[in-house]
C-alpha cells in the first residue's frame, strides 16, 4: 500500500477519535462514572514494527487482548490491548473491586471482554458510517499473553492500523492500544475508501 497522505491519516484519526468518544459515553453510562478517551496517535505500519514499538515500554509484562475478526471491504482482526496492570486497574475501577488482585477472575475477564467489545463495535460502526461501508464481526475473545505471542502472525509484513488510546477514569490515566490487522488487499481498499470520503468533503 502506498503511504497514506497527511489528510488521509487525519481522517483516520478523526474516525477513531469519534469511535473512542462514543465508547467513553457508553462506558460512562455503564459504570455511572465519568470516562474520557482520546486518540493521540494513529500509525499505519507492518506488524514487526508494531512489536518493535511496543516491546521497550512493555518488556516482559503481558497484555490483555480482546480481539474480534471482521469482514467488510477491508477484513482482518481487530484488537484492543491493555498492559496487564492497566487491565487490573480498569476492572478494579469499573467493577468496584476492593481487593488488590494479581489475576483476573472469570467475572473480570468477562467485563474486559465487554469493554473491548464496546470499543471495537464503536470503531466499526463509526468507520461504517463515515466510509459508507458495512462490517460483520465475530464475538470478542480475550487472551492474556506477551506482545510477541499476541502479534505473532504468519506474515509479519501485514499492515496494521495501530492506534494509541488514552483512557481516563476516576483520575487514573491508562494507556491502551487498538490494532486493526488487515488481510491482503484490505489496505488498498481502506485507502480507496478514505480517498472517496475526502473527495466528498473537499
Amino acid at each position, binding site marked *: 500500500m502506498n503511504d497514506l497522505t497527511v489528510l488521509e491519516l487525519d481522517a483516520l484519526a478523526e474516525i477513531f477519535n469519534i469511535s473512542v468518544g462514543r465508547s467513553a459515553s*457508553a462506558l460512562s453510562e455503564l459504570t455511572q462514572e465519568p470516562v474520557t478517551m482520546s486518540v493521540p496517535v494513529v500509525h499505519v505500519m507492518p506488524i514487526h514494527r508494531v512489536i518493535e514499538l511496543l516491546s521497550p515500554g512493555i518488556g516482559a509484562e503481558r497484555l490483555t487482548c480482546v480481539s474480534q475478526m471482521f469482514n467488510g471491504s477491508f477484513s482482518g482482526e481487530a484488537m484492543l490491548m491493555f498492559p496487564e496492570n492497566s487491565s487490573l486497574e480498569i476492572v478494579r475501577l*469499573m467493577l468496584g473491586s476492593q481487593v488488590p488482585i494479581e489475576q483476573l*477472575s*472469570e*467475572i473480570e475477564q468477562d467485563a474486559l*471482554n*465487554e469493554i473491548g467489545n464496546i470499543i471495537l*463495535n464503536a470503531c*466499526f460502526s463509526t468507520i461504517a458510517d463515515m466510509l459508507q461501508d458495512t462490517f460483520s*464481526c465475530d464475538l470478542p475473545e480475550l487472551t492474556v499473553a506477551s506482545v510477541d505471542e499476541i502479534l505473532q502472525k504468519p506474515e509479519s509484513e501485514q499492515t496494521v492500523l495501530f492506534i494509541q488510546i488514552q483512557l481516563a477514569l476516576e483520575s487514573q490515566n491508562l494507556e491502551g492500544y487498538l490494532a486493526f490487522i488487515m488481510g491482503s488487499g484490505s489496505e488498498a481498499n481502506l485507502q480507496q475508501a478514505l480517498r472517496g470520503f475526502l473527495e466528498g468533503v473537499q
Partner: protein
Amino acid sequence: MQLFERALSVLQSGVMILDEEYRVHFINRWLNKAFDTSEDLQDKALFDHYPELVGSRIHQAAMQALTSGLPSLLSPGLNRSPLPLFRGQGARRERFSQSIRVQPMMSDDKCFCLIEVQDVSSMVRREALLNKQAEKLNQMALTDELTGIANRRHFNMMLERELRRSELQGTPLSLVFFDIDFFKQYNDHLGHQAGDKCLVAVSDYLRTQLQSYGYQVARYGGEEFCIILPGQAADVAEHLAERCRNEIESLKLKHPSSSVAPVVTASFGVATRSDTQPETQTGLILRADNALYRAKLAGRNRVVVAERQDKELS
C-alpha cells in the same frame, strides 16, 4: 417435533430471536419461563411488553445487531441482570445474574438477532466469596496476630506514605519508638503467656489513647512498638512520648524482675524528619532506634530525643 426443536425446548439456558421490529420470532421454553409471565412471548414486541428496557444496554445491543450487524456481550460484572428473569419457586423466587450474547443473523435477506442468556448466579456468588476471603487475607497480612494492631509490614507502608507526603507538603514528621524494659526477664520470670498478656495490655491501652489523636501504634517486633506522628515536630512528639511513658507506668503491671521500677515501664526514642536534608525511611527509623538505645543506656523508663540530623553530622 424435530430433534433440533426438541433440543432447544429442553436446553437449560435461554435462546431468543428478535426480528427487525424487535418482535420475538422465537423464544425457547427456559427463557419464556424465566421471564416470570404466564404469557407466551412468541410474536410479542419485546420492548412494548417490557417498556422499562427501552434505551437499556440490551436494547442498544439488539439495535446494534439489527442495524449494524455487530455482536455484543453483556457481562455479569457490568450488567447484573439486564433482563427481568427469575429463578426459584415461591418465597425463594429471585431475579438472577445473567451473561448475555447478542449476535446478528440473516435469513432470506431479513435481519434478525439471536439473544443467548445464561444464569450465572452461582459463579457470581462464588466470586463474591473468594473476594471476601482475599480481603480477609490481606487484612491479616497487615495485622499483628497477638495484639491486633498494625504489624511491621503495615508500619513500613504507612511510614513511606507519610514520609512522602511530608516531603511534598513541607510539613514535619516525627517517629516514636519504644520498648518494654526488661521484657526478657519478665517472660523468664512470669512465663510467656504472661508476657503476651502484658504486650496486649500495653498496646490495647495506647491504641485507644492514641486513636483520639488519629495516631496509629504499630508493633515493630518482639517488645518494640512505634508511633508515626504526621505533621508534628520534635516538641509535640517528645511531649506525647512522655505521656505514653507515664501512662504505661501508671498501668501498674507488676514487674518483679525490673531493676528500674516494681511495675512495667518502657524506654522511648523520638526522631523528627529533618526539613533541611532529605531523609530515607531507614535513616529516620535508625535515628529513632538510636535515641531509644540511649534511653536504655541512660537508665530506662525515660524519653530521649534524637539530635537534629544536621547537628549530628557536624
